């Protein structure tokens, strides 16, 4: 019997340029958002997604035909694409929006990604989308699920382990859930969203950074894709959470019990 042809994987990794996670966030004076004149970098969960795609290629070698990264953002987002290319992605797609445009929302992003995937059909299509489970600026955690929904694809979210079997055309994903770990198996094409424990992203090595400068980045606009990224939500106000009041030291266990009673915490009757 002839062995069935091993399917070649085309991997798409959507990434987002966000405020660097180590920056101290400050609300702007108009209370419409946060101060964005700070250091930005790739959303940490997206870094993990890029890393996973590169590791997939290291494991499956030629079976991974292409790793494309895509971002929807202002001109500066191209730097984030370059970082992904330096980590090992092959090419990038920059859906460019103006600097002053409001941030796209998860549904808008999902629709844009759908359009990108449609466009990729003529180049071999997309078999696997690996993306961060959430962006650290909005913490929405919706885009992956919405994308799978509108594409009619399988989804495996909060992945802490990903194994792809190209022969069977399926992915086995271990998911981090409240009760522990859950293993799901899905047919490709599928959307996998990454959780923190999936991997630790590599440093961008200098030779790769230099190679990345020559890798292609295709620029498109939302209208090229036929999507409208105008937000459907209006942000009314952004404020800081209430300041944490200090704790207090007590001198004895009796005082602790008295204070707890004061605060309205009663003992549970066994």
């Amino acid at each position, binding site marked *: 019997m002839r062995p069935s042809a091993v399917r070649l994987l085309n991997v798409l990794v959507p990434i987002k340029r966000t405020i660097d996670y180590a920056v101290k966030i400050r609300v702007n004076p108009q209370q419409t958002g946060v101060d964005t004149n700070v*250091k930005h*970098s*790739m959303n940490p969960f997206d870094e993990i997604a890029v890393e996973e795609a590169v590791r997939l290629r290291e494991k499956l070698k030629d079976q991974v035909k292409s790793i494309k990264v895509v971002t929807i953002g202002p001109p500066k987002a191209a730097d984030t694409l370059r970082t992904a290319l330096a980590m090992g992605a092959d090419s990038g797609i920059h859906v460019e929006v103006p600097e002053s445009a409001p941030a796209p929302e998860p549904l808008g992003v999902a629709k844009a990604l759908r359009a990108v995937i449609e466009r990729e059909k003529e180049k071999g299509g997309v078999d696997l989308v690996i993306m961060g489970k959430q962006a650290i600026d909005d913490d929405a955690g919706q885009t992956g699920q919405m994308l799978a929904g509108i594409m009619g694809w399988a989804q495996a979210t909060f992945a802490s382990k990903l194994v792809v079997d190209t022969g069977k055309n399926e992915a086995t994903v271990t998911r981090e859930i409240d009760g522990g770990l859950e293993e799901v198996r899905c047919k490709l094409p599928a959307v996998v969203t990454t959780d923190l424990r999936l991997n*630790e992203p590599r440093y961008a090595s200098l030779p790769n950074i230099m190679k990345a400068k020559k890798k292609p980045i295709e620029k498109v606009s939302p209208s090229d894709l036929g999507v409208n990224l105008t937000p459907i939500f209006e942000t009314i106000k952004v404020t800081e959470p209430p300041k944490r009041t200090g704790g207090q030291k007590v001198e004895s266990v009796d005082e602790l019990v008295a204070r707890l009673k004061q605060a309205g915490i009663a003992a549970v009757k066994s």
Partner: protein
Amino acid sequence: MGKYHGTSSTVLRPRTTKEVSEIVKYCNEKRIGIVPQGGNTGLVGGSVPTGRGELVVSLGSMNKVRHFDPVSGMCTLVADAGCVLQSLTDYLAPHNHIMPVEFGAKGSCMIGGNCATNAGGVRLLRYGSLHGTVLGLEVVLPDGTILDQLTTLRKDNTGYDLKQLFIGSEGTLGIITGVSILTPPAPQASSNALLALPSFDSVLPLFKRAKRELSEILSAFEFIDRGAYDLSVRHGQGRGMSPEEAGGAECFVLIETSGGRREHDEEKLSDLLEHLLSEDKPLINTGVLSQDATQFSNIWSLREGITEAVSKEGKAYKYDISIPLSAFKEVVDATKDRLREKGLLGPHAVKEVVGYGHIGDGNLHLNVVAAAYTSEIEAALEPFVYELVGKYKGSISAEHGLGVMKAHALHYSKNGISIEWMRRIKDLFDPNGIMNPGKVLPPASGASHEPSLKNTGSGRVA
């Protein structure tokens, strides 16, 4: 570190300068020795009592920031001596300023101690030493007098600059109770890279290139030899490069840039790295460039964690020396050879000999990691290392100070006349010899020079 042990019957924790003054006055009258303590992170036993019945005076309860004016443009911070360095850094952060000193012990060390020891650290390359960044000190003199020279004036050429005597005096001329220090603006953009070098010979040319091409944005240039790198990675101190990348490297260099314009600075740094990589005889094998804040701190952790890795590996003999850059490798190798000759190189005695440090300042931290502290190993190393340094006309203590460890070795780096005048100054300030006895200055030759201290009886060297 666990190397120096001492006991005292009494520890005092004054809360105000006045209390410090009263304590010192009393001790001076009663001839009781005093050991001032800050964060107790010193590496030369300078904060450990020596069995002369000293009292320990901890500055830890004096930990308030007295004054900081971000608006006036002078950017000086005035703080109690017992403020922990990290807490001052945290205090300044929202105002977009930083402390001009920074090093591994920042979570525990205190600013008063930093000044008393003229601490160096990784930022010295960029901001200079405490002798330049400290604008004023408040010191309690050995007779209890409070010398208040706290000022926020940037320029003040009125008379002899007394504070310079106390900076680096390691508690032997008085107790620092307040510090006024310049706080540079926080850099808008910091970036770092870890470079793998094929051979030690590349280090000096690399340093010259980095200085020339990065010029004002170069803020740190640290050397890590292969042994130190492997030790740090092995003890999980930070993330290293992939093993293939680190492969044949003989040593590593950490470069940090800090500047005002992110794009401009990142471009300068990646241009330099690109040039280095694409030359005919590259000075570097490869390197990694941090892409975000996490990677930035991971790369720094690798360097800052060497100290901890060393203590996890065994008992360390630490030699903090200033020698010509070109001699760094020679000194490490010579020390290894010496130990090998004495049959002390091996898991039973000395497990590792590693070198790392602020190569940009000509400062090497030579660490000999042993299974245990033994007199045999000490005899093999001292005065061998000091003599080696003396040969290069170097410093036996670039930044760690003399404490009790190197007081006897002062003559390897300073001539007799210098030492004599240091002693005269000590006698002038502290005729009863109560301030941190046994530290910094060697005992005078001939009859016992030390004024007799009242031994409270319970002091004992462990």
